């Protein structure tokens, strides 16, 4: 082999260093992080705080404290101006309800200028649930082709109006998953409608703050649709105790009693007050009539799972209201032909 002169050695060393530098630069460009609102510029000065998502990211009673605690942490950090890196690597179980709750908080913070980056679950099933959920309609991120064609969706709005036709369309589609034919379900329609109106009419101080998310998750294999609805408003307890129940709180044992009464008998029955809102009793009627099942409500520090008779005061209160329910073939069939 030909011996290199010192000049050549120096040249090759320089070239090697230059190539290494270039490689690093290229790698840097590739590693640009995807944020909720697009790619973050290379020269950004954001500092991101890593937040590890609970491994069981669902809102069943057993995991709700951890998940709500995590959601609250995001809210608090975001409101203090902190950008976040949401790490989902370790998730082994994930629920569509928790995804909606996370999305609703992230959306609120993104509007306030907070930037999120993040990773997806390593677990393939969890990753597929997340990608199919409709989450990435609102948050930038790649979705595998196999998960991009899903009937699942998340509807949301940022104003006081109710998008009836969109709602009707999605509910009719959900009937196809459950009963194998598209159709009208007045009970499901009225449930969602009541939740939306409660959000719009009571949960927020100003109209421009109104935001809710309604998610539908279809499962063709067991003819089931899971529904969840969430807003980040005041919550049912605050709505009542700062309003109509201001002077009547002592008529109730605790916050759980307030919410249970509001659903089961209506606030007016206990207080004698004239309360025009019939929304929560209407939802409960539809549940009692078995048009919907597995009804779960989380609002402020109250967790109620009506099917499992769980009535629980949360240590981590959720500022807002979350509903979850399911419709499958064990429910009373309500699927009327579409007229128009």
């Amino acid at each position, binding site marked *: 082999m030909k011996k290199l002169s010192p000049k050549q050695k120096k040249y090759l060393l320089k070239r090697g260093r230059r190539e290494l530098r270039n490689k690093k630069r290229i790698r840097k460009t590739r590693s640009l992080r995807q944020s909720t609102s697009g790619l973050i510029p290379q020269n950004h000065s954001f500092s991101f705080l890593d937040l590890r998502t609970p491994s069981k990211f669902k809102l069943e009673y057993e995991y709700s404290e951890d998940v709500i605690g995590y959601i609250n942490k995001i809210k608090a950090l975001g409101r203090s101006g902190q950008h976040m890196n949401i790490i989902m690597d370790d998730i082994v179980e994930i629920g569509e309800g928790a995804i909606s709750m996370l999305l609703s908080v992230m959306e609120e913070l993104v509007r306030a200028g907070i930037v999120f980056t993040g990773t997806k679950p390593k677990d393939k099933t969890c990753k597929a649930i997340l990608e199919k959920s409709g989450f990435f309609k609102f948050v930038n991120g790649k979705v595998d082709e196999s998960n991009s064609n899903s009937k699942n969706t998340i509807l949301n709005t940022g104003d006081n109006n109710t998008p009836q036709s969109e709602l*009707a369309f999605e509910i009719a589609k959900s009937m196809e998953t459950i009963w194998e034919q598209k159709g009208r379900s007045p009970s499901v329609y009225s449930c969602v*409608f009541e939740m939306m109106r409660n959000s719009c009419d009571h949960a927020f101080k100003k109209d421009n703050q109104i935001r809710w998310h309604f998610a539908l998750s279809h499962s063709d294999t067991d003819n089931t649709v899971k529904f969840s609805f969430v807003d980040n408003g005041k919550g049912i307890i605050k709505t009542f105790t700062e309003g109509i129940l201001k002077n009547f709180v002592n008529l109730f044992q605790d916050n759980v009693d307030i919410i249970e009464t509001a659903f089961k008998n209506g606030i007016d029955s206990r207080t004698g007050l004239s309360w025009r809102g019939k929304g929560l009793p209407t939802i409960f009627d539809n549940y009692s009539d078995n048009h919907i099942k597995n009804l779960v409500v989380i609002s402020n520090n109250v967790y109620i799972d009506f099917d499992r008779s769980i009535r629980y005061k949360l240590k981590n209160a959720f500022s807002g209201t979350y509903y979850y329910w399911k419709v499958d073939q064990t429910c009373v069939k309500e699927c009327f032909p579409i007229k128009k």
Partner: protein
Amino acid sequence: MVEINICDDFTDTPGARTYDDGEFSGQEFYDKILLPKYEEALKKKVKLQIDLDGTYGYASSFLNEAFSRLGNKYKPNEVWDNLILISNEVPKYIDKIKEYIYEKRK
């Protein structure tokens, strides 16, 4: 008999309480359909038949707003006697409407 078919004459996606809540509210239904048809029935001395079937469903606020307005403009007993309600798909709407007709509005 005077007839209203809400799905055909108004909408298949009824809305919420007032105009501020968006399209096809209970207030809009009352102003544009329910009250004029009720008065037409009174004039003709016939009953007003309202068919609730065929829509995607009703929010309680829609029914409450429309029928409590009617029950407060006219005497509730008279209104109830002059209506024929059809709700084969969701029979419980009839009881709710009766309750709203008799409800005193503030």
